[in-house]
């Protein structure tokens, strides 16, 4: 004769088995249908992602309507930088080939903030061989300019050394080559 206690234990074991089995059933129900068709992901996700509207453009798309900026940009040290890095997303400006809105224009202090996103020495994350970095306001002091100066007062934002080189050409002052 099985004791009442043993019966309870058997019931506990059975309920664990039922719960585990029930869990597997619930799991099977909750897994999306297309999951695992190609790999460990939902196959429908590919189609859904492909349907998303493309929001970013290339520099080429920008240059189509901005030939003046294109000319300077392509000759300067910033030629590899994407327009969208500084000017925001293409789709906020152009839709179906037509201009829909103006992109935000950085002014004053905002320009310095933007430049320092890459050119700040404090970041210490980029080799100076790759990107010239400066410390603020030390750089302004070294150049003997007002501390309120923003970067674009000396540097053309598309070709940072454009004005500097032109000034050197005029004055004939070229830095000594190492």
């Amino acid at each position: 004769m099985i004791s009442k206690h043993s019966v309870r234990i058997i019931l506990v074991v059975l309920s664990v088995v039922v719960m585990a089995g029930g869990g597997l059933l619930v799991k099977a129900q909750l897994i999306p249908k297309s999951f695992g068709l190609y790999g460990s992901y939902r196959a429908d996700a590919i189609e859904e992602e492909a349907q998303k509207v493309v929001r970013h453009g290339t520099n080429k798309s920008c240059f189509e309507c901005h030939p003046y900026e294109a000319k300077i940009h392509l000759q300067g040290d910033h030629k590899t930088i994407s327009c969208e890095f500084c000017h925001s997303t293409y789709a906020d400006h152009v839709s179906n080939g037509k201009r829909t809105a103006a992109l935000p224009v950085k002014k004053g202090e905002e320009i310095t903030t933007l430049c320092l996103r890459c050119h700040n020495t404090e970041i210490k994350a980029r080799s100076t061989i790759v990107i010239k970095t400066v410390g603020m306001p030390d750089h302004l002091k070294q150049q003997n300019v007002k501390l309120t100066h923003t970067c674009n007062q000396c540097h053309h934002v598309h070709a940072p050394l454009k004005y500097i080189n032109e000034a050197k050409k005029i004055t004939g002052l070229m830095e000594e080559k190492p």
Partner: protein
Amino acid sequence: MNPALYEASQNLSHGASMLISNYVFPNDLHVHWSMMIVLYPYITGLVDGAFIIAALYYLFDVKSLKPIARFSLLFAFAFLCCATLPLLLHLGRPERNFNMLLTPSPSSAMAGFGYIYAVSMGVLSFIVLFVYRPDLVERGKKAKGFMKLIYRALTFDSNDLSEKALALDGKIIRFLVGLGIPVAAVLHGYVGFIFGGVKANPTWSTPLMPVIFLFSACVSGISAIIIAYIIIRKMGGYSVDSDCIRTCIKTLTGFFILAFSFEMLEVFSHSYLKTGYHHMVEGLLNGPLASSFWLWQVKICSVVPLILLGCMAFITLKDSIYTFIAGIVSCILLLQVFIMRWNVVIGGQLMSKSARGYTVFHPEWFDKEGIVAVIIIMLIPFMILFVLGKIFPFWAEERKGGIQ
């Protein structure tokens, strides 16, 4: 000469003896796995160590551990409840963890952890319920209303306390604890494996990692149990069983010698093999981690307790002094394991993949993963333990101040 090359050569001649130019990749600047990921192996480790103490009594019949065996189980349970909390807080969107359980990817180490955690939670819950059944039956008889219903559920609706029933319970407990040991070892070994499996990080990527994590887990868990036992007993005005403390300390000594040896062996292996990233690891341990690794983890929190444990083993001490030193050693070892987790998790991320620079980590107070969050998370298991103590008595019935 190309100006860039010139600059590079200048840099090189400047610090020819120093390979580190502090050139950190932008994506390596921020330490992504911060204090919550330090807590995650720490909490699972505490579970593991506490469970080992319980297993020594219930499976290996170490009788002197009887006074703390039940408490260790509850302690392990309370901390296991919170083991995934730091992870979920770190990741954000905690509801998404169900996706991981629904469609586990075979190539995802974390998905495996979800299942191992669930199994260990199940096993530990049943061990607690079976161990406490006689107490729960007695309490259930006195309880009324809703509480009576709770006690009925917790005792599987069986109030049979006959010898035969208890013998059956005993067998089930032994079976479950026997099952629990590999589950607990896998649970924490797996945490070590998750780190050891990160190939991109030279300080983590070693097959020794699960072993180191496992032994240090036992150290932290046993230390925590010793401290909790001494404090809770003293606060309640009860006596502390010195025989039990002595057995705990002996077990702790064994595990700590293994843990510390493996920690040092790992450093030795790195240093002897001189693998591709060795200069970085060496620079890390002697640079940004010089204080937290060599001074704190090794000298203060490992060598000092080793000397103390040696004194406790070789010198005959009075029970009260032995208990006092046991408490001190346990505190230092709890800190040791925490610092070790810190040095592995955060220290390992201070190196940039450029192999030419280190970043710094600044813990914040009120961050999502800040110091306040750490304190709150560490308090939750104690709150759970307090609530559990209302239903599951920590100690067997006894007179206040009496001898067990």
